[in-house]
């Protein structure tokens, strides 16, 4: 697991991909920070994280970050090395997932600069900010697991990125349309959606059930990824 993790993490920084993605993300984040906080003199940075554009950028970031993670191995044949090594598939998938997670965490850590600035110049609500970050990390981690799964479905990275982006969009749409349905359907949709739960965190509510939901979601996605790889071994060459 360690070997795969180390390799994948290094690989992100060997190529421009991690730099470009982090740069893009921070550019959008900083513009929002300027508009919502600096220009309007408002100390609460959770507005950034709840903004639709920011979530859209997170979707792009996570799906592009993960698109190559398994598809590339399959395409260039290095998958053979991994699957015929004594390392088991679970540790390979987890190692790769953790590498994407660390890139995401590095990026998230850089955004700490926004609340730090508002702490210096104002008095933001600490609970909202901490809660917002926990939610943001859980949401990003869940998106990454979707991306890793999508990458296991194909050897074509373009197909992988589109698949994961569409799956994330569906998650988003679910929370958006739930308002049009009443009663149970809305409840179920809100329960499933990764996004509805996310809003709670930004209001400073730390819902233990939501934390468990996100972690379970990640677990299921990675489990399906492992199953996909195993299944392929049985069916084709």
């Amino acid at each position, binding site marked *: 697991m*360690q*070997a*795969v993790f*180390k*390799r994948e993490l*290094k*690989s992100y920084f*060997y*190529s421009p991909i991690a730099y470009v993605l982090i740069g893009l993300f921070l550019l959008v984040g900083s513009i929002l920070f300027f508009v919502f906080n600096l220009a309007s003199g408002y100390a609460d940075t959770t507005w950034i994280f709840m903004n639709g554009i920011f979530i859209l950028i997170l979707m792009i970031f996570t799906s592009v970050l993960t698109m190559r993670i398994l598809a590339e191995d399959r395409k*260039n*044949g*290095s*998958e*053979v*090395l*991994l*699957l*015929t*090594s*004594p*390392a*088991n598939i679970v540790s390979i998938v987890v190692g790769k997932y953790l590498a994407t997670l660390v890139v995401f965490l590095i990026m998230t850590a850089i955004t700490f600069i926004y609340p730090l600035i508002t702490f210096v110049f104002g008095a933001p609500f600490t609970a909202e900010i901490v809660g917002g970050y926990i939610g943001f990390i859980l949401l990003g981690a869940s998106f990454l697991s979707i991306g890793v799964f999508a990458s296991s479905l194909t050897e074509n990275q373009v197909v992988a990125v589109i698949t994961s982006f569409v799956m994330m969009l569906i998650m988003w749409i679910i929370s958006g349309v739930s308002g049009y349905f009443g009663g149970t359907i809305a409840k179920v949709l809100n329960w499933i959606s990764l996004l509805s739960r996310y809003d709670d965190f930004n209001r400073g509510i730390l819902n233990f059930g939501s934390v468990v939901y996100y972690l379970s979601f990640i677990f299921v996605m990675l489990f399906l990824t492992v199953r996909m790889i195993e299944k392929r*071994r*049985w069916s*084709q*060459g």
Partner: protein
Amino acid sequence: MFPTMIQAGGNKMIEIQNLTKRYGQITAVNNLNFTVEKGEILGFLGPNGAGKSTTMKIITGYISSTEGSVKVGGYDIMENPREVKKRIGYLPEQPPLYVDMTVYEYLDFVSDLKGVDKRKKAGQIKDIMELVKIGDHRGRLIKNLSKGYKQRVGLAQALIGNPEVLILDEPTVGLDPKQIIEIRKLIKALGNEHTIILSSHILPEVSAVCERVVIINKGEIAAVDTPENLSKGLGNASKFSITIAGPKSSVISYIKEIYGVKYVEAGAEKEKDAFSYIVEADKDVDVRRPIFYAMAKAGYPIIELKSLSMSLEDIFLQLTTEEKEVEA
């Protein structure tokens, strides 16, 4: 239980039993049975698409078989994949490289992946780089290496962890003649310490390197023998083609009288008044000299004489082309 497992393995390093792989309607490998002794270099020979690579992928655990069993060092690939994979170094047709890494980084990664002892790692990588002659390129990105060097890095990767068994899928494809000779030498040297299965569709390669050959065609074993025995052919006669200038009927009657000749047949007219003849004789008797003297005495000069002993190519073609039309 453990001792019986060792015994069951015996000197057999690899045991393949009733191995079958189907892709839907297509049978890629059909009921394969063979064993490889410890320390043996086995050649896996067959036309493209015969099922060589598929068989190798199954042995290494990359894909699963539909039926049958594979045992390496006494361990079953389905029941104990980790133990089997630990014992195998695999070089697939396309070397499984990470082109964004340098040679050293890559081999370091493979060592970690295979769980090589941290203290032995650096020394082992150094030895292997020396062995496959890539030491000078250790700091270069793999994507910038030539095909031949990529192949060597692939071979180095297979050697990491010092596995007992090496499975090499067409290891010399795409190399230049000098490199091919080097790699063959290297494989032969590796055969002293490793059990090797080597696939190829190039016959001289197999006869140069391997101790035993499995000829596989359309997913089935067509022959298993040493390269020498295969070239000797299955029959017990030696065959010659002779071109002699002289009247057909009297030449035939002269040859027929010679001791050991079993069969003579006149062929086409090669030059003016010179015909080719196919002569079959007992394997133990050399009829070439008596034919020469007989012809000299009769005043019929021999223009050409060549032995038609079957080369590995002939055997191979004979064994693998019978069903060609069905395939097409």
